[in-house]
Structure formats: structure tokens, C-alpha cells
């Protein structure tokens, strides 16, 4: 088995690429308009879906926002780079990170049933500390913009690679498609389109991977043997260099990505309270097969002896390269592009919806509490567009967004243990929380820069936790969590005719 099985496909024209992007956007727009008519009347419905998201929609929408376009590609890429150890370390913490939300989600939903955002929780948890609340709000906004940015960038790369469309044009078309439909129905739109996108990710992924192996001469057996011949370590999940190289750091990063992400907290307060725990359990468990399935494409890359140079230098392109060059029928290649587009669109609309909840609750209602519903609703809807516009400008400007990635990483990782302790440990106090976050950035980030990712990440997490525990033990006061039950609904549905 060698590289000769790959050949470029001349029928993948730019117009097919535009048709895929715009077609999915128009379909979602039609659904979104129906959602707006049937389920959304006010800001409360728009940002929290009237807290009526059921179990099925909850599971599917959590999976959809967690399945990033890059994750679809990275599962193949990590397998390609590290063999099955890469897939193991990429997959296992991924589902676990979703299930790790369960204890925190249950505590907050039980004790603060009328909540909207994690920043709102911090506001009441730390006696309206502007610093603590500001740090969390900023972290959430940075995280959301980065989510949109990475998905947008990943998708534009895939679409431009497969269809030969200019990547800047692909970026603009992609974001216009997502924002057009996200604008209408808010969270309900994100949940419903995300659910359908999960279908578009799962079933086509299975068919495409099976078709790729059917297209390889000798099938799965030939791939298996060639992968083993290329290096016995490729078929092992126990490579220590994969764990040290990215696995352990990724595990912490993923945990921070869910617990420190308003996209997930918005769902915690939007899903029916009786279904919150099991929704995250099912979502985490059912998420696992997606990267396992797509990771198999990485084995084909190893078996054929492809190198990063063969696929344009970026190993993330291994999946798209194999699917577009192995001689599959055009419909299957388009189906694969749809898998990536579905992952991209659902993550961006989920992030945009989360941003709208932050704008409504943590900015407008916090600083301008008298804002009437007739003004709040259009502001909230408009804010859906904000993250996408900012992310597009950053992507199109061509600037290196390493600084944004590092800043968001520093904020999210440093906030991880202080946030967990704020939820679970009543002795956590404001000084400890703020001090923990500041100390872990001030001390941990230089360690990260000097010593490396693994030691740096562990230092950031440990410093934050130690500072919170130290300050908590020095203070005799305990937070009475039942106080949170008295937090009123900031954006309750106005009574009919009240506005």
C-alpha cells in the first residue's frame, strides 16, 4: 500500500463548495425562522429557551457544540501523528470533560434555579465583586470569540483546500451563513440546528470512513498490516511520548474548556432541571464514537506513508486529504465536507447564543438594570452577530492569533480550580478566588513559557487551587449556598401585555 492510491479530484469546483456552505445555511435559516415563530417571543426565550430544552435536544445540542470542526479533523490528525496512542489521548479526556460538568451543573441548577450565566453566579457568590465577576465575564467572552475564530478558520481552510475557493471568501460566506440563521431564534435555533447537525456529523461519518476503507486495496486488513509495518508503536495505546507530548495537557485544557465555558453553562440553565445530570452523561458517552470513527482515517494516512509535506504541511488536513483524494464518489466527498460544515456551524451558533446571554445578563442588565424588554430584546439579538464579526475581522486580518489563544488558555486554565471550588467549597472567598486566578496567571504563565506546556499547565492549575484553599482556610466565614435560591430571574418572561 502506498501513496499511489491518492489522486486529486477535478470535479470539486468552487461552485460546489459555495452550494454546500450556502445550502446548509439556507436550510438552517428556514428552520430558524420556524423556531422564531413557534418558540421565541422575548429575551428570556431567546437566551434560555424558557428553561424547557428537553432530554433529546439537550443531549444532541451538547454533542453538537462540543464537536468542533477542528475536532473532526484533529481526531484523524492525532492518530496520523501518534498512532492509536494519539487517538486514545485525544478521545478519552474529550468525553470525560463533558461528563465532568455533571456535579457542578447539578449543584448550581439546584441552588440557583433562575440563573443564566456562570458570571452571574460569581456575582452573587462573591458579594457582587466587580473584579471577580469581570474576570469571569472576560474569560467567557474571550473563550467564545476563540471558539468562533478557530472553527471559522478551520472551515475556511477545509473549504478552500477541497474546492479551491479563496480562504477569505470562504470565511465570509461561512460566517454570513451561520449568523443569518443564528440571529432569529437564539438558543432554540442553536439547539434545533445543532441537533440536526449532530445527525449530519454521525451517520455520514460512519458511511465515509467505511467507504474509505472499502476504497483501499485490501481493505482494513491491508491498512492494519501497513500501519504495523510502519512501526509497531502505531498500534499501541501506551506510547508515553503521546501522553507527555500532548495528552495530559489536552486533558486539563478540555476540562477547562467545558467548565469555564458559558456555552455549556447556558445549557445547564436551559435544559429542564430534571434532565440536567443525565443529559451531560449521555452527551459525553455518545460523543465518544465520533472521534473514534473519524480517527480511523489517520490510520490510512500512516498506512499509505503520507507525510505532512504531502498534504500541505498541516497534519489537520489528513482527513480531508484522504477523503478528497482516495477516489470516493463525489457525493461522499461532499458529505464529508458537510460533516465539517455541520460541526463548524453548530459550534459557532452555540457560541454566538452563549455570547447573547452574556451581553443580556452580564452587561446590559448588570450595568443598565432599568433597560426595558423592548430594548433588551433587539440588543440581545444583535449581540449574536458580535462575536462572529469580531472573529471574522481577526481571521481576515491575517494576524497571528497566538496571543489570543494564549490569553484565553491562561484565563480558562487559571480559572478552572477557583471556579470549581467556588461551586463546591463554601469556604472559598473573594480574595482567594481573585488571588488564585491572578497568581496562577502571574506565576504559572512564565513557568508555562519557560518550562513547557505540561509543567506550565500543572503549575497554573495548582497555584490557582492552592491560593483559593489557603485563603479559605484563613477565613472562618462560610458561604450559605441557599442564598442563591433567592436570586431572582434577571430576565423573567414579561407577562403578556406588560410591555
Amino acid at each position, binding site marked *: 500500500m502506498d501513496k499511489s492510491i491518492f489522486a486529486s479530484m477535478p470535479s470539486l469546483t468552487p461552485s460546489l463548495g459555495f452550494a454546500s456552505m450556502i445550502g446548509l445555511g439556507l436550510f438552517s435559516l428556514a428552520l430558524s425562522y420556524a423556531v422564531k415563530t413557534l418558540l421565541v417571543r422575548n429575551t428570556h426565550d431567546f437566551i434560555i429557551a424558557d428553561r424547557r430544552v428537553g*432530554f433529546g435536544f439537550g443531549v444532541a445540542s451538547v454533542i453538537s457544540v462540543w464537536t468542533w470542526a477542528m475536532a473532526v479533523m484533529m481526531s484523524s490528525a492525532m492518530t496520523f501523528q501518534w498512532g492509536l496512542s494519539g487517538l486514545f489521548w485525544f478521545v478519552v479526556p474529550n468525553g*470525560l470533560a463533558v461528563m465532568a460538568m455533571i456535579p457542578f451543573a447539578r449543584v448550581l441548577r439546584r441552588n440557583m434555579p433562575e440563573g443564566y450565566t456562570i458570571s452571574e453566579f460569581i456575582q452573587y457568590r462573591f458579594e457582587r465583586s466587580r473584579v471577580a465577576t469581570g474576570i469571569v465575564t472576560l474569560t467567557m467572552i474571550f473563550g467564545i470569540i476563540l471558539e468562533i475564530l478557530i472553527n471559522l478558520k478551520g472551515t475556511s481552510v477545509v473549504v478552500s483546500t477541497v474546492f479551491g475557493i479563496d480562504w477569505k471568501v470562504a470565511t465570509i460566506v461561512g460566517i454570513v451563513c451561520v449568523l443569518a440563521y443564528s440571529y432569529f431564534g437564539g438558543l432554540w435555533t442553536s439547539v434545533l440546528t445543532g*441537533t440536526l447537525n449532530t445527525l449530519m456529523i454521525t*451517520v455520514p*461519518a*460512519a458511511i465515509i470512513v467505511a467507504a474509505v476503507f472499502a476504497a483501499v486495496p485490501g481493505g482494513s486488513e491491508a491498512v492494519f498490516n501497513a500501519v504495523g509495518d510502519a512501526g509497531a508503536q502505531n498500534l499501541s495505546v501506551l506510547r508515553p511520548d503521546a501522553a507527555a507530548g500532548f495528552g495530559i495537557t489536552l486533558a486539563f485544557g478540555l476540562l477547562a474548556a467545558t467548565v469555564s465555558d458559558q456555552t455549556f453553562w447556558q445549557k445547564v440553565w436551559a435544559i*429542564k432541571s430534571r434532565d440536567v445530570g443525565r443529559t451531560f452523561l449521555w452527551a459525553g458517552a455518545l460523543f465518544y*464514537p*465520533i472521534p473514534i470513527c473519524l480517527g*480511523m482515517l489517520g490510520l490510512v494516512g500512516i498506512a499509505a506513508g503520507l507525510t505532512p509535506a504531502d498534504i500541505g504541511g498541516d497534519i489537520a488536513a489528513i482527513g480531508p486529504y484522504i477523503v478528497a483524494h482516495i477516489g470516493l464518489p463525489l457525493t461522499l466527498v461532499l458529505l464529508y465536507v458537510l460533516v465539517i460544515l455541520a460541526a463548524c456551524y453548530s459550534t459557532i451558533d452555540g457560541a454566538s447564543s452563549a455570547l447573547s446571554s452574556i451581553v443580556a445578563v452580564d452587561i446590559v442588565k448588570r450595568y443598565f438594570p432599568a433597560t426595558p424588554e423592548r430594548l433588551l430584546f433587539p440588543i440581545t439579538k444583535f449581540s449574536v452577530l458580535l462575536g462572529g464579526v469580531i472573529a471574522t475581522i481577526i481571521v481576515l486580518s491575517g494576524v497571528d492569533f497566538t496571543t489570543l489563544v494564549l490569553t484565553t488558555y491562561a484565563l480558562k486554565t487559571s480559572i478552572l480550580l477557583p471556579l470549581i471550588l467556588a461551586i463546591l467549597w463554601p469556604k472559598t472567598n473573594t480574595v482567594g478566588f481573585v488571588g488564585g486566578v491572578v497568581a496562577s496567571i502571574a506565576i504559572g504563565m512564565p513557568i508555562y513559557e519557560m518550562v513547557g506546556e505540561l509543567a506550565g499547565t500543572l503549575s497554573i492549575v495548582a497555584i490557582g487551587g492552592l491560593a483559593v484553599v489557603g485563603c479559605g482556610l484563613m477565613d472562618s466565614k462560610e458561604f450559605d449556598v441557599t442564598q442563591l435560591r433567592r436570586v431572582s430571574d434577571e430576565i423573567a418572561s414579561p407577562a403578556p401585555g406588560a410591555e
Partner: protein
Amino acid sequence: MYTLILVLGICAAALFLAGFARGLRNAVIEYRRGKPEPTEVPDYNYVGMAAISVVISATVIALVGVAPMWIYAGPLMVLGTAAGIGVAFFVERPSA
């Protein structure tokens, strides 16, 4: 195997879409009814199930390195994801 996955994929998609239709219908009915949702969060033992799902996933990845037939476990399992979501819509209890 490709044909089997194609057929199972169609079945999984059908179950998913049937569930989606049920979920959407229930959501619209509940929204129109407008009755407040209960706020209790039931105790739910999830640790065992979570551990099982992690172990199964890790084991399947390890088994791919043992025999070539396990390569198809991923595609078959992901159809389980689609079907599982469909089932989730039927498991859920619409609000009274």
C-alpha cells in the same frame, strides 16, 4: 461492511428523525401550554455509567491495534450515537 453500515445508517437516521419530530412537537406543545417547569434536580447516580463509557471507548481504541475488524467498531458505534439520540427523545417524559 460498507453496505451493512449504509443500511444501519439509514435505520439510525430514521430513528433520529422520528425522535427529533417527537421532541419538536413536545417542545411546541409545552411552550404553548406555558405551565412553569418544576425546578427539582433529581439525584442521579452517574459515576458507574460514566466509568463504563470511558472504559468501553478506551478498550475499543486499544482493540483496533489487535485485529483489523475492530477498525469498523468506530463507524458502527457512531451509528449508535445517532440512534442513541433518537432514543433519548423517546425516553424523555413530556412535562405534565
